[in-house]
């Protein structure tokens, strides 16, 4: 079952080192494929926070959603319960935790490689940044942004999602010449882009 207890509930087990059994169960739970992006495991997606053995036969798993409304969380929970039941753990509780908030920086390097191979441009590193960030307002279908003084002025006031200055590459041909078609795609976590060199459309895992 998925419990929605507030994330702050203290865990007696949280402060002690992970036991060998917990490590084994965490690897097992972490090997479950993501229901929407089956090339990735939950471990690679970075959503599996911890596995605690509460007492013999009773295990609590901490799972964090990518997006608050991500409908895949329930399927993930069911899959985790199944693999742990199969390992012989009769009592499995999957607890959803929100804090600290998941970020795309939690996706592992191996996860990023697999995303690219799957045809999805992986998220760029999320810049550690507090306060206003630079944003360029432009038409919906954008070519690479041009920064003007007016943009900079607007940016100071507005702030918006922005991920560093790293180029975004087409996962098919590697070109950095791409345009945004829609900032929301097949799922909330992806944007739809098109490569201006090979002309292929592709999903981009948005920075969060």
């Amino acid at each position, binding site marked *: 079952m998925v419990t*929605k207890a*507030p*994330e*702050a509930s203290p865990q007696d087990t949280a402060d002690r080192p992970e036991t060998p059994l917990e490590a084994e169960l965490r690897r097992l739970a972490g090997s479950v494929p993501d229901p929407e992006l089956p090339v990735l495991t939950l471990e690679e997606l970075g959503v599996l926070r911890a596995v605690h053995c509460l007492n013999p036969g009773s295990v609590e798993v901490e799972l964090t*959603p990518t*997006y*608050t*409304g*991500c*409908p895949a969380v329930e399927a993930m929970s069911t899959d985790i319960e199944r693999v742990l039941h199969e390992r012989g753990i009769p009592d499995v509780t999957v607890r959803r935790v*929100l*804090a*600290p*908030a*998941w*970020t795309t920086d939690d996706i592992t390097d191996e996860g990023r490689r697999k995303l690219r191979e799957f045809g999805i441009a992986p998220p760029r590193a999320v810049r550690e940044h507090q306060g206003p960030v630079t*944003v360029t*307002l*432009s*038409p*919906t279908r954008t070519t690479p942004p041009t920064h003007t003084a*007016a943009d900079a002025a*607007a940016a100071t*006031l*507005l*702030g*918006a*999602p922005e991920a560093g200055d790293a180029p975004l590459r087409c996962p098919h041909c590697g070109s950095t010449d791409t345009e945004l*078609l*829609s*900032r*929301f*795609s*097949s*799922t*909330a976590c992806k944007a*739809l882009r098109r490569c201006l060199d090979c002309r292929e459309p592709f999903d981009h895992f*948005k920075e*969060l």
Partner: protein
Amino acid sequence: MTTSLNPASSADADAVTAAAALALGDDALVLSHRLGEWAGHAPVLEEEVALANIALDLLGQARVLLSLVGDEDELAYLREERAFRNVQLVEQPNGDFAHTIARQLYFSTYQRLLYGRLAETDGPLAGLAAKAVKEVAYHQDHAEQWTVRLGDGTAESHDRMQQGCDALWRHTGEMFQPVDGIDIDWPEIEASWTASVTAVLERATLAVPEGPRTGAWSAGAGRQGLHTEPFGRMLAEMQHLHRSHPGASW
């Protein structure tokens, strides 16, 4: 949480938190439903998907917030109109696409500021706020870009965008009525909101609407359970399946 000279009992503190969660949860739930009404009607496929994704984010936030109050399904489907605590802005009908974008601009700007400040507190809603603020940043970006595109577009799109902004202006004041249990600087949020929205409207070659931000009849009304006429019909549609078939599942 507000600090008090008399240490509040934990039950009181829980009640205050629940009231705050109900207000924010109802905002998210009601706007989510309104955006969901666009399914099958959006002007282009990309917007169909975008509005549905924004609605899904809001629904996820609503589920977390309402679960702090009680049973999420009972709260969503079995409350009467007067028991909802959302601001009136989010219950306003979709209108045309520009009207929806104006509502998105006003609300996402507010919600992002609110969640951003809330995330900096150590209150019980800080965890959800820190998570949701990152999602709402994309909603605000979406609304701002469309506001600019429509406002600075054709004469027709400009007029419609202006009409949407004007029509909803009288519902914007209510958002800054302090909510019990959310200890943030409300006047500062209002000032930031005004600066942010003004900058976008000017960039979109639109006029900042004039006229009152609230009517005497509407000041703070949604948070007190008083809603506008279209809300009842929206709720009837949202709740009818659950009420007609109690306990149904598939």
